[in-house]
């Protein structure tokens, strides 16, 4: 197959935004994704048994990955173990455990699953090396990304309120959502602790916009939005890219290798379609946007005569510098009737400790939000199995008294590079085509554990201040790797000795290869959700490709 200016691998946050940027700039694009297409009618939230249905989920919508053995847990940190009052410890034994790289394969990628938090990075979080001597600096300042943030917010339909810590050149396209009942109580009851809350910027429509209806506050964003008001990229960038007439989208097309020629250029790529047929696509330019676990895997799988050790891996950096989701959540039952099964997943946010130096004794910040819906505590099945103990008549009575009263406060913090945290190819696990799966290594250093410690203490304090009872469940990154936000495995920078791609996402040594997903992040931010930044970067990369094409470099 030939005839496209650019082939984009992966139709998630980064790939879809880049494909739109390229197609709307006049380039022809082939957008390939390993997973299936989803439609709003695929999601189960109109069914009474919705809680028992895995969603978004279809054949081919989950990749496989392996975990390397992880570090020993210390009894000194037993208070940071994940547990539930009914079932006990979630991870038994004395070693940290790899549980999940949470993702969706499909047109829309992991945004099909996301809560649509749409954060700009705090400018100070982009200079961790020069300010604090840790991690890496971004190769350009916040101001450079700002216009792309505006475009991404406009295309996704972000509802938010101005935040002085994150300067902006235009208002949000949509006014913020009003906070829900429980979030208003949280704001009032944590004021004496000094906590300040603001509307969380969300790619969820607070009114009809761009042909999509406003949200009706069903609290099921993680299961896929049947109304299309959640700005997952399958309802924003992808249809707009197709509408240009210059973007062809293929689902069920898993790219299995890139072949590099002697001139440091990618000549072709191969993909398998859902019927198992292999196809070769000759190309002038490739954008890899398979997510921060699968992008390094694909580059490593593409080792060949002209790419020993993998494509773009001259320095052995592909897969290194993996940044994971450092998180903590405390859940408790409140004696008052709160109706927390309603509303938006995280309608308000607390940035009080977001700055890199905000947590005493630790470098790297964090943020807090109510996450009852993200913890799937929105229906009677989860209450019956996770919240209410026992059985029989007393269980029933407690169900009646407690349904809708669960609250969960969650935190996510900065993840800094660690030599023990990276992605490589699994020696003993292959995908259905016989290709090695990605293997995730993860190690938490003392500073990371210190950050979790702080997040746990604050979450517990806030839950108590709310007036809730003792926690019934807590869950965090100390004893398990369960990451929704992953970054850094093909880091961008100006120095080819310490980065894989340049400031525009272009591989240092492979002139027609670009990377446009969370892999390129030099640092994670202090808990900011990544998708908006991934999209802004992708739009900037698309601009760079357009310019390179105009200069006939590709």
């Amino acid at each position, binding site marked *: 197959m030939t005839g496209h200016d650019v082939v984009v691998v992966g139709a998630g946050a980064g790939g879809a935004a880049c494909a739109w940027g390229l197609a709307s700039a006049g380039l022809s694009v082939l957008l390939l994704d390993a997973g299936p297409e989803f439609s709003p009618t695929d999601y189960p939230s109109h069914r009474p048994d919705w809680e028992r249905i895995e969603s978004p989920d279809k054949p081919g919508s989950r990749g496989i990955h392996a975990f390397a053995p992880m570090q020993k847990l210390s009894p000194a940190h037993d208070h940071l173990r994940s547990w539930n009052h009914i079932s006990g410890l*979630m991870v038994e034994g004395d070693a940290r455990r790899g549980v999940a790289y949470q993702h969706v394969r499909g047109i829309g990628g992991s945004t099909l699953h996301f809560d649509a938090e749409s954060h700009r990075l705090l400018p100070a979080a982009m200079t961790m090396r020069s300010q604090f001597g840790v991690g890496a600096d971004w190769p350009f300042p916040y101001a450079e990304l700002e216009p792309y943030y505006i475009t991404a917010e406009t295309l996704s339909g972000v509802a938010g309120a101005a935040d002085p810590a994150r300067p902006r050149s235009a208002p949000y396209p949509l006014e913020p959502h009003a906070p829900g009942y429980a979030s208003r109580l949280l704001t009032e009851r944590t004021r004496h602790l000094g906590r300040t809350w603001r509307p969380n910027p969300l790619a969820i429509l607070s009114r009809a916009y761009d042909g999509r209806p406003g949200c009706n506050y069903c609290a099921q964003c993680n299961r896929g939005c049947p109304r299309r008001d959640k700005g997952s990229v399958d309802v924003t960038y992808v249809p707009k890219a197709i509408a240009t007439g210059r973007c062809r989208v293929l689902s069920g097309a898993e790219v299995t290798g890139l072949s590099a020629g002697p001139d440091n250029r990618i000549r072709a790529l191969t993909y398998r379609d859902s019927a198992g047929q292999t196809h070769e696509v000759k190309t002038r330019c490739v954008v890899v946007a398979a997510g921060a676990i699968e992008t390094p895997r694909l580059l490593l799988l593409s080792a060949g005569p002209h790419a020993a050790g993998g494509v773009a891996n001259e320095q052995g950096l592909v897969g290194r510098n993996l940044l994971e989701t450092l998180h903590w959540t405390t859940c408790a039952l409140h004696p008052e009737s709160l109706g927390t099964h309603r509303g938006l997943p995280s309608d308000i946010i607390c940035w009080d400790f977001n700055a890199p130096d905000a947590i005493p004794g630790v470098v790297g910040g964090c943020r807090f939000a109510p996450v009852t819906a993200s913890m799937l505590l929105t229906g009677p099945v989860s209450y019956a199995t996770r919240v209410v103990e026992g059985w029989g008549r007393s269980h029933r009575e407690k169900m009646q008294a407690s349904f809708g009263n669960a609250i969960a406060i969650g935190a996510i913090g900065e993840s800094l590079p660690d030599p023990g945290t990276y992605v490589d190819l699994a020696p003993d696990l292959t995908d259905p085509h016989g290709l090695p799966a990605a293997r995730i290594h993860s190690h938490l250093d003392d500073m990371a554990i210190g950050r979790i410690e702080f997040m746990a203490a604050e979450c517990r304090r806030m839950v108590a201040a709310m007036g809730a009872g003792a926690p019934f469940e807590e869950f965090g990154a100390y004893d398990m790797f369960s990451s929704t936000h992953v970054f850094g495995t093909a880091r961008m920078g100006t120095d080819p000795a310490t980065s894989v791609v340049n400031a525009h996402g272009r591989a240092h040594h492979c002139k027609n290869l670009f990377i446009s997903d969370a892999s390129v992040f030099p640092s994670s931010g202090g808990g900011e959700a990544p998708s908006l930044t991934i999209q802004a970067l992708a739009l900037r990369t698309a601009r760079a490709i357009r310019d390179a094409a105009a200069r006939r470099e590709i």
Partner: protein
Amino acid sequence: MALWPWGSGGLPGRVDLLDTQNDPLTAAPVTGRRRFLGLLAGGAAVLGGAGLFWRLLLPSPLDAKELTLLRRAVDHLVPRGHAPGALDLGIDRGVAEALNATRQFRRLARLGLAWLDDAAGERSDWEHAFLSCLAQPTDVPPRIFFQWLRNETFGRYYADPRSWAGLSITHPPQPMGYPDYRSAPGAMAARS
């Protein structure tokens, strides 16, 4: 934001052995699988000796006695009250089907039911049986079975809207959503 990692409606438990989506044996890593088989054998030896151990290895579906025990256990978990009980909604049949679906689940059920029956004693004291089971370590088969049974029974029962009487939920989240999310629960209904 971080999401509950055990999938829809799942209860955390033994990550390796208690996995309601998968077969508890094939889902376990090799060492866990061996340990699980060892535990099954040990449990059988304590309860019924070699006879039960060999029956555990048989692929046959649960027999009439085992199905009766299962009904009793399900009934004790969700008895009839103001709302219909689990048996009224046929939950036991769904649970039995799920248990009969794989050989490994049948083994687990066979051992778990025998253990619970033994603990319930001649007085059929299921309350005592459940409490004794909860006193077991979390990784022994009867406890794993009980946790699974509790999960599956409640999961099926509360996925049926006939069980929602008296809870502050009257409809699935869509298509109506919760436009009243800013008010105290029931406040909108009370006003109108």
